[in-house]
């Protein structure tokens, strides 16, 4: 395994987009740990919501080693630009779309997403900080850090294919048990793939799959 080359991203870019940090690297570690599971799903379509630097989708596409359609959305135009470059820097063709969450894609990707990736803005902040198009959008999560997460959760059952898997990053303050019970009502089961403490944050990578799939 190799961490994607991000040497092309300048410090001035990190004024505008989220710089990969512990949460990003824990996400990569979790995907690597699960790579055989994901490969065995024989995914065709991957979707990342809020791809930032693009490091996660790049890593997954590289590690899978087989072609996939990797659509990466972000609400921050700089992030979509950098996402594309990070893919190219690593020989991967990512397909960025500048949009809010999955707007414009939800209809056609319905039941078509095999791997859904989401490293949300999970930091607990005042609600007023949520909803920007700049770098704040990468971390400001509002109340319980859940305000953007709670807009994504209802989309998950619609987007995922029969075999589809959903990975997301959370911190303890996001109340993972509550997230679990929300998706359980739509027929999903949750596994905590990895957890790690990083400074004040207790990070986990959650994996959701359909209960009725095997």
């Amino acid at each position: 395994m190799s961490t994607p080359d991000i040497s092309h991203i300048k410090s001035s870019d990190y004024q505008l987009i989220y710089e990969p940090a512990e949460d990003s690297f824990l996400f990569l570690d979790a995907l690597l740990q699960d790579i055989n599971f994901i490969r065995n799903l024989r995914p065709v379509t991957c979707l990342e919501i809020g791809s930032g630097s693009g490091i996660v989708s790049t890593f997954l596409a590289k590690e899978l080693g087989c072609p996939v359609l990797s659509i990466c959305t972000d609400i921050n135009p700089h992030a979509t630009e950098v996402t594309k470059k990070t893919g190219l820097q690593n020989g991967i063709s990512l397909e960025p779309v500048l949009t809010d969450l999955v707007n414009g894609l939800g209809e056609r990707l319905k039941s078509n997403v095999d791997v859904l990736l989401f490293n949300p803005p999970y930091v607990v902040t005042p609600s007023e900080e949520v909803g920007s198009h700049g770098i704040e959008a990468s971390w400001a999560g509002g109340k319980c850090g859940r305000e953007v997460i709670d807009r994504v959760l209802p989309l998950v059952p619609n987007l995922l294919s029969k075999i589809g898997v959903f990975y997301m990053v959370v911190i303890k303050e996001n109340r993972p048990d509550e997230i679990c019970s929300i998706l359980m009502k739509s027929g999903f089961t949750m596994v905590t793939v990895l957890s790690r403490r990083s400074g004040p944050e207790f990070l986990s990578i959650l994996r959701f799959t359909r209960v009725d799939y095997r």
Partner: protein
Amino acid sequence: MKLLTHNMLTSNIIKGVTKGFPLGIQVSKLEEKSVDFNPDFVARMIPKIDWSALKQAASDVGKGDEIPADIVPQYEQNEDFLKKAHHVLMEIEVIEGELVCPESGRKFPVSNGIPNMLLNEDEV
């Protein structure tokens, strides 16, 4: 933006637009990039494609002759068909241009290969 990705975009996020598909393409810069042909991947992608929308998209960018009007029977074994589909889906990229909502005429810019689907508050 590959035509594969274009096939997944709709404009029914605009208030009052019901289907918003397929989006028209007005291209000012197109690129063709060679991508390794993987027949298995293309064959598994075909069922997810709206073929008539792909055909229209190909026509919009001046490549309509490069794929047949319909998916051929037993395409899984038809390498010639899969190669054509691969070319149009994976190798033709809209770098600069606009996507046009078929109902409202609203244009979504494509810049540096990235479609901008963001709407103004009064459009939602």
